[in-house]
């Protein structure tokens, strides 16, 4: 059965096609066309025949390309976008063809005037074509991405036929629907010489580009009037522009909508992440949420509390500053001064707000890395000629002992007070005291 379907039938049908066509051309050359019925019924004809021919020509072209250059075709369809585009265009063409053909069949069946010129073969051809197109749609839907797999199955098989070394192995395990589609195709090839399908050999390709001709069914007087009425314009030229214009827009619209739809569907389907990507994404989000939370808890602390712990005085260093956040949520630095008391200074550069580096150079200065301003940590003054003109504000501080008693305070201007008396402060135990910033010193720093 397969042998007949895949090898016998093709050769039989091709023989019939060639012999039959040659005979028909020699015996009745002017019958190589399709009998027109436009005069008998126009509206449905246009509704049917135009979509049908556009659709079927696109489909045939697609089949032909996949058959002629299977290798190029395969590499092209490996591109997902290309494959999607081709398949979408294919489905659109198939839908047009099926719709047009259905209209044509309906028209043949119900229009009384057409019955007279309809022979049995016309109906057979129309029926077979409809079945073939529907089968094709079925195959394309049921066995997806035919544009791709056909290049590895049917194309080499067809090549083997045409090189007279028939090889059925390529196609032997194809499903029944595909077999039927192929078999029907061979049957129709054989039918070509005996039916109106023969008009495929006399395609009026030159029509679109030939000089306009006007078919006049009338007398000379009427002709003159018609041309005058059209303002000297040939209506056929006009109509042809309309057809070309519409064609161009439809083609552009189809291509654009395929591309845009492809992008839109992907966009709204959203991200499809594998596990590690999901983990990365969530980790990153969590990290940013934590940073925000930390920032906000600092802010809350500064709103609620009148004083905030910076560090133990013993932890401070004269050379490497310790970063902390001041009441205005700006970075600040804490050092231990030469007198073993703290130095607290804003680290927000007065030039452009960069954060000043924390290490002190030999001249007792810290540097802003952005535009190289050096600030003296004791006075906050920038070096002469620095981009920064204003000094870094100094921050006030409190020194508390372990019990929370305030031993010494200094405001932003450097004024010190000893709430417990100056003698209560033991220079030897300084390192055990805690350095706090206080809200009441904040106004100077602002």
């Amino acid at each position, binding site marked *: 059965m397969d042998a007949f379907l895949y090898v016998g039938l093709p050769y039989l049908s091709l023989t019939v096609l060639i012999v039959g066509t040659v005979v028909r051309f020699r015996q009745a050359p002017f019958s190589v066309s399709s009998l027109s019925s436009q005069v008998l019924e126009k509206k449905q004809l246009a509704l049917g025949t135009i979509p049908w021919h556009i659709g079927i020509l696109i489909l045939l072209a697609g089949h032909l390309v996949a058959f002629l250059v299977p290798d190029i075709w395969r590499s092209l369809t490996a591109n997902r976008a290309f494959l999607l585009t081709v398949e979408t265009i294919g489905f659109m063409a198939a839908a047009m063809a099926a719709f047009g053909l259905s209209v044509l069949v309906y028209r043949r069946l119900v229009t009384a005037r057409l019955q007279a010129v309809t022979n049995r073969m016309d109906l057979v051809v129309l029926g077979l074509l409809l079945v073939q197109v529907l089968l094709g749609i079925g195959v394309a839907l049921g066995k997806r991405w035919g544009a791709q797999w056909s290049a590895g199955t049917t194309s080499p098989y067809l090549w083997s036929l045409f090189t007279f070394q028939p090889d059925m192995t390529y196609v032997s395990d194809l499903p029944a629907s595909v077999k039927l589609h192929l078999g029907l195709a061979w049957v129709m090839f054989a039918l070509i010489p005996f039916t109106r399908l023969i008009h495929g050999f006399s395609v009026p390709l030159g029509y679109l580009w030939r000089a306009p001709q006007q078919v006049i069914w009338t007398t000379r007087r009427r002709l003159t009037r018609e041309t005058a009425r059209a303002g000297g314009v040939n209506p056929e030229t006009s109509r042809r522009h309309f057809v070309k214009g519409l064609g161009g827009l439809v083609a552009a619209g189809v291509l654009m909508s395929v591309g845009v739809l492809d992008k839109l569907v992907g*966009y*709204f389907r959203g991200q499809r992440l594998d596990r590690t990507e999901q983990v990365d994404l969530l980790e990153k989000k969590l990290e940013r*949420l934590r*940073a925000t939370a930390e920032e906000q808890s600092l802010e809350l602390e500064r709103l609620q509390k009148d004083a905030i712990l910076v560090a133990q005085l013993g932890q401070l260093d004269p050379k490497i500053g310790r970063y902390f956040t001041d009441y205005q*949520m700006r970075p600040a630095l804490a050092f231990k001064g030469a007198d073993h008391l703290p130095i607290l200074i804003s680290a927000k550069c007065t030039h452009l707000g960069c*954060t000043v580096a924390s290490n002190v150079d030999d001249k007792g200065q810290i540097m802003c890395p952005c535009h190289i301003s050096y600030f003296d940590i004791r006075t906050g003054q920038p070096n002469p000629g620095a981009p920064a003109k204003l000094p870094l504000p100094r921050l006030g501080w409190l020194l508390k002992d372990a019990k929370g008693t305030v031993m010494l305070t200094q405001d932003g201007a450097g004024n010190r007070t000893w709430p417990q008396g100056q003698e209560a402060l033991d220079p030897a135990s300084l390192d055990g005291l805690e350095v706090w910033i206080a809200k009441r010193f904040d106004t100077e720093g602002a």
Partner: protein
Amino acid sequence: MKTAGRTRRFVAFLAERFPAEKMSLQAMVQKKEVPVHRWSWAYYLGGLALFFFIIQIVTGLMMLFYYEPSVATAHASVENLTNNVPGGALIRNLHAWSSSAMILSVMLHLLTTFAMKAFGRPRELTWVSGVLLLFLVFGFGFTGYLLPWHQIAVNATKVGLGSIDAFGEYLPGALSDLPRQLRETIQGGATVGQATLSRFYAIHVIVLPLVSFGLLGLHLLSVQLHGMSPGVDKPTGRTEKFFPLFILKDLKVWGVVFLMLATVAICIPFDAFLDYPLAAPYNSLGSTPDGIKPEWYFFWMYYPLELLPFWLVAGGMAVLQVGLLLVPRIFRGTSRKVLKSLAAAAAIYLIVITLFGQAIYEMFSGGH
């Protein structure tokens, strides 16, 4: 008596600007003719700006599906959109490129309509609504720039809003604090933070679009009512029909421009022009990276601000804004020849400052 006269004059003014007899589809669409002459290309610029505006709306709406306007997640959501969502990078890129293209075409539109004296009677309101739309477009640019919440966005916004403070220096006594209060009202807090992001987001996606729909409606209505301005002193007498001929040509231009825009958006990520530390998420406690600058379309006022005394630039800006709105009055009697020279001078300034602003700045500031 006096008021009655004024009212009558006002009604007459409106009647001339919005002639009721022309308020029909026939008059506004079918009968409209577009003059044909050497400057006809300029008639496409307004439509082009409209086209980019449409693209902005579509891509902007699409990005709303993924964007999260909070300081903690804004940057991550934009990153997710760019890196993970299929086509997300393209949509964002289209939005960025098209915004620049829109501003460019709006600027060109302004210059050409000025040069062609398209603001003459009865087209004053067309001009004024156009200038207001121009301000809105810059507003779109300024507010939209903040939304990705990366370093350059937040810091440039800080600097932009910070320049409001500089007015305080020139105000007497108690008033001198007013600019700072104004800035804090705009940004919703002492610094640029969540409140600022929420406000800019609302302004960018709701307020400005709604206002521009209104203004755009007025602008287009008056364009259709009065037709295209003749544009040249000696009309060639040749015209073409607005519908369908000019519309179709417009569509053709849009098609070609879309091809160019999409090619650029597919091939060049807009952010690739930035140094990458500037695109890192904003860090309020960290140091500020180098190279904070506004978008190119603000260079024309940014570099003068950097180089010249503030009062001079601020005064110039005020004069420019009022002047633009009053153009139909000021240049009522000016010839097209003079207008063209003025427009050309403005164009040369814009081109030079946009392309070579950085070099000029470095030359005059003397580096450090």
